[in-house]
C-alpha cells in the first residue's frame, strides 16, 4: 500500500518539474502559477523530513531561479489579496530551495516577503518560527539570521526595489 506521504512526494515532484519549465520572465497574467506553487509548498510541508531533504538536495539551478521568482510573485499576491497564506507559501518555497545557491539571492526575495508581511499585518517572525521544525539546519540558520537583522537592512530600498501600483494592483519593480 502506498502511504499518503509517498503520494504527496510524487505529486510534489510532478509539480516541481512543471515549475522548472514554467516561464517567470514576465509577471503571470493569472494565478495559475502561484496556485500551483502554493500547492507544492503545502505538499512539501506534508512529507517526511527525509523526503524534504531529498527534494531540496535535487533542486536544479533552473528551478532555484523559478522558486525565487515565484516567491516574489507570492509576496505581491499577499499584498493584493491580503491573505497570509501567500506569506506562508513564500517562506516554504525558500525551504524547498534550502539556500542551496547564492544566499544573497534568497535575501533579495525574503525582503519582498518581509515587506508584504508587514503591509498586511502578518508577523514574519511568527511565520518563520512556525516552519522551523520543517527547516534544515542551513535554512533555519539563514532564516533566523534574516529575521534577527536590523530593520534598516531588510527594507525594499536596501535591495534596489520599490512597490508600484498599477491598475490597483501592487507589484515590485526595480527602483532605478
Amino acid at each position, binding site marked *: 500500500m502506498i502511504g499518503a506521504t509517498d503520494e504527496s512526494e510524487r505529486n510534489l515532484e510532478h509539480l516541481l518539474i512543471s515549475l522548472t519549465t514554467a516561464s517567470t520572465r514576465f509577471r503571470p497574467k493569472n494565478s495559475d502559477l502561484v496556485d500551483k506553487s502554493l500547492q507544492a509548498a503545502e505538499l512539501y510541508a506534508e512529507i517526511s523530513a527525509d523526503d524534504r531533504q531529498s527534494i531540496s538536495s535535487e533542486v536544479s539551478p533552473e528551478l532555484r531561479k523559478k522558486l*525565487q521568482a515565484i516567491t516574489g510573485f507570492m509576496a505581491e499576491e499577499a499584498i493584493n489579496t491580503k491573505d497570509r497564506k501567500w506569506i506562508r507559501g513564500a517562506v516554504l518555497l525558500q525551504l524547498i530551495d534550502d539556500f542551496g545557491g547564492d544566499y544573497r539571492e534568497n535575501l533579495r526575495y525574503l525582503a*519582498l516577503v518581509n515587506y508584504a508581511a508587514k503591509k498586511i499585518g502578518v508577523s514574519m517572525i511568527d511565520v518563520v518560527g512556525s516552519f522551523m521544525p520543517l527547516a534544515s539546519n542551513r535554512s533555519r540558520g539563514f532564516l533566523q539570521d534574516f529575521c534577527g537583522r536590523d530593520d534598516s*537592512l531588510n527594507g525594499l530600498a536596501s535591495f*534596489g526595489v520599490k512597490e508600484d501600483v498599477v491598475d490597483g494592483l501592487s507589484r515590485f519593480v*526595480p527602483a532605478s
Partner: protein
Amino acid sequence: MPPPVTPNGPYIELGSKEALAAQRAYAQTFNNSQGPLVIGRLEDTAAGADMGMTRLNEPDWTINVNDAWIQGGVDAQQPFYLGSPIKIGNLRSGNPIYPTTVYFRKLQQLRAAGHYREGDLMLPPKGN
C-alpha cells in the same frame, strides 16, 4: 538657508546598521592589501577565498553594501578577478522584479566606473 536635499538614488540612513556595514565593506576593498578582489557567484568567490583572494562576506549584506564594496575597489583602482564565467545563466534572474543577478550588478558598476575586461580580470581604466 539652503533648500532641503531630496534623496535621489540609493539612500542609506546615516548611522544605521546598513550604513556601518557599507562603511566596513568600502574600507575592506579601498584598503585591501590582501589577495586580489574576487567577484562572482557565491560558491565561486568562496573558492577564490580559499586561494587567498578577498571576497565580500558581510552578514549585514544588502545591495547597497554590495555597491559600497565594489566602489571601494573602484576608488582604489583595484583589479577584480572574475570568479564566475560571464554567461547568461550567471547574469539573468529571469523575472521582472529582479531581472538581473547580483553578479550582473557588480559588472555593471565596474563598467560604469571605466573598468574593462582582460581575460579573467576587470582592470581599472588606463591612464589613471
